[in-house]
């Protein structure tokens, strides 16, 4: 078991101020006694004599008494919803499942390092109980995630479990990473995004150059659907390749539109896992 110590962490920032009293690394909604200065309120509103702001009290011409309020730092649960349908076995430029596992492990390590609990839900047609890890902030979480995902077989067809997975999450604000190749029917995409729109939702699209830009100009391909939708001979030629790439771009655009309506725009994870790129995406959106 190798701990990805040399890898930079994924830096994420939840949207808005989080409720909750448990101390953590993110800005909380609650005003507490420690942390960054937030504002001053009259003593009667927060009768805490220890944090009386002497300077403000003296300055007030109406002789009111003021108390300093500080922003509480709280934690946020990070969940990864991982698509385990058979299409995740795809291996082009990179092995899709390995890429997803690397991402989840890196995310678990990044979350637990700053004290955020990390939970994992694997779904195919239903929620996979063997790939369900409740949120925990234990130090060994990343290793546990890696171990679980290393022995996971992607056999199921369909990703209807994703819609069901929303019920496993309680209603408190949390960051949810939705990791999939999103080779779903558009209705399912809309349904899943709608069911998760209450959370800070980050879609992570697993792409591969072999599925679009890397397509050959000429040649015969016999495609076999990993989810059992049949086999098909495709005669690649430049015109078909152009149409194919345009279709992929259209699909990505549809996904982006749906995702932006319910949360953040999707992050495309292709080729290899670059934590800095994820951080930039998360901080920028």
């Amino acid at each position, binding site marked *: 078991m190798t701990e990805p110590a040399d890898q930079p962490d994924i830096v994420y920032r939840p949207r808005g101020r989080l409720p909750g009293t448990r101390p953590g690394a993110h800005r909380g909604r609650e005003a507490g006694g420690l942390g960054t200065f937030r504002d001053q309120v009259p003593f009667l509103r927060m009768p805490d004599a220890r944090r009386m702001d002497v300077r403000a009290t003296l300055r007030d011409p109406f002789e009111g008494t003021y108390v300093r309020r500080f922003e509480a730092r709280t934690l946020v649960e990070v969940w990864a919803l991982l698509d385990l349908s058979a299409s995740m076995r795809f291996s082009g430029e990179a092995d899709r499942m390995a890429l997803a596992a690397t991402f989840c492990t890196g995310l678990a390590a990044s979350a637990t390092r700053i004290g955020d609990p990390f939970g994992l839900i694997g779904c195919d047609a239903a929620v996979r109980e063997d790939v369900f890890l409740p949120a925990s902030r234990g130090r060994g979480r990343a290793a546990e995630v890696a171990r679980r995902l290393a022995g996971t077989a992607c056999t199921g067809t369909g990703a209807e479990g994703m819609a069901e997975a929303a019920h496993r999450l309680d209603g408190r604000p949390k960051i949810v990473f939705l990791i999939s190749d999103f080779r779903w029917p558009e209705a399912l995409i809309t349904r899943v995004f709608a069911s998760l729109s209450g959370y800070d939702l980050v879609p992570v699209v697993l792409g591969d150059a072999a599925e679009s830009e890397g397509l050959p100009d000429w040649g015969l391909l016999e495609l076999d659907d990993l989810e059992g939708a049949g086999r098909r001979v495709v005669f690649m030629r430049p015109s078909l390749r152009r149409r194919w790439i345009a279709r992929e771009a259209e699909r990505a655009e549809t996904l982006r539109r749906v995702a932006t309506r319910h949360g953040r725009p999707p*992050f495309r994870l292709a080729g290899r896992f670059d934590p800095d790129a994820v951080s930039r995406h998360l901080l920028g959106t």
Partner: protein
Amino acid sequence: MSNALARLSADHPALFWLLPLALLPLLTSAQRITPVAAIAAGPADGLSRALGWALRASGILAIAALILALAGPYRQGETLTRMGIGAQVSILIDRSGSMNETFAGRQPSGIEESKAAASRRLLAAFVGSRAHDQFAVTAFSTAPMLVVPMTDRHAAVRAAIAAIDRPGLDYTNIARGLAMGLSQFGPASPATSRALLLVSDGAAVIDPRVQDTLRAAFTRLHPNLYWLFLRTKGSPSISDRPSGEDTPQAAPERHLDLFFKSLRTPYRAFEAEGADAVADAIAQIERLERDPIPYTEQRPRRDLAGLAYGLSLFGLAILVGAKLCEADLRRTRPVPVVARATEKLANGKLPTGKSATDPAVPPRFAA
């Protein structure tokens, strides 16, 4: 069509039980299978679909044709009976010694040709002129000789006729010759036109006892009788009455003619005193004998394994071509660096100063 199918057969029909194997290309493929996340990602393409079916059909063809070829298919030989225009002609040729003489009654010398040679030349042309005539050749002198039975193999008949100018033998025994010539007519439909062509340069007395037998045979077979009488110059004609006593012994030609006329079958006598007259006579006979005749045609057994191997080769060639054309999705061409950089920019709105030269291989986690 069903008749043609019924004649198809094979050396090892048990191998046909393997024919369901030809459906294997519907289940699997010789092409390299490229697993993809979603087959619907590729746009619908009619040409690709057609190629897919063509490849499957080629596979089916290759396997099915190989099995057929191994089973050793062939088309059975057969005998076809068809109708043509022609007649059954039984040629009865006199081989008596006098046939070797010329029409002038001498031994041939120089450019002169004997009666046998002239009739040989003209009869040979007669034999080849119509495709569906059937001929039998009988020679007679003292005893009749069966030369060629009734056949439509004209080459054999011509060869038989070519042999009739060999030096002739003894005397003329026309009764036994006629009997054998008549026996050459095999069973045939009543509509078939039959002709007995007697070529002789003389006649002989027919024994009255034999006459009845011949009469019965003529009545039964009812052939058209042609007598090509090669008359030597100076010898008596058919119609000449002898000066003395009118007996068969004194004028055998005349009495033979009378006998033929009494047979109540169509009869014509041609008296030829030279090669041209013989040619005229033969041409007349040819004109007269124009009736439908059933004839048989032999079709030999035909081996079809080569055809099956050829079909199989055709299918295999298409499959090999497709194999050579196949592309590999995994060995993708390298995405240009510019594309990668723009992708990074698109993903990360906040470019940092960090170098992008991370290890290319993502870390893997062993269990």
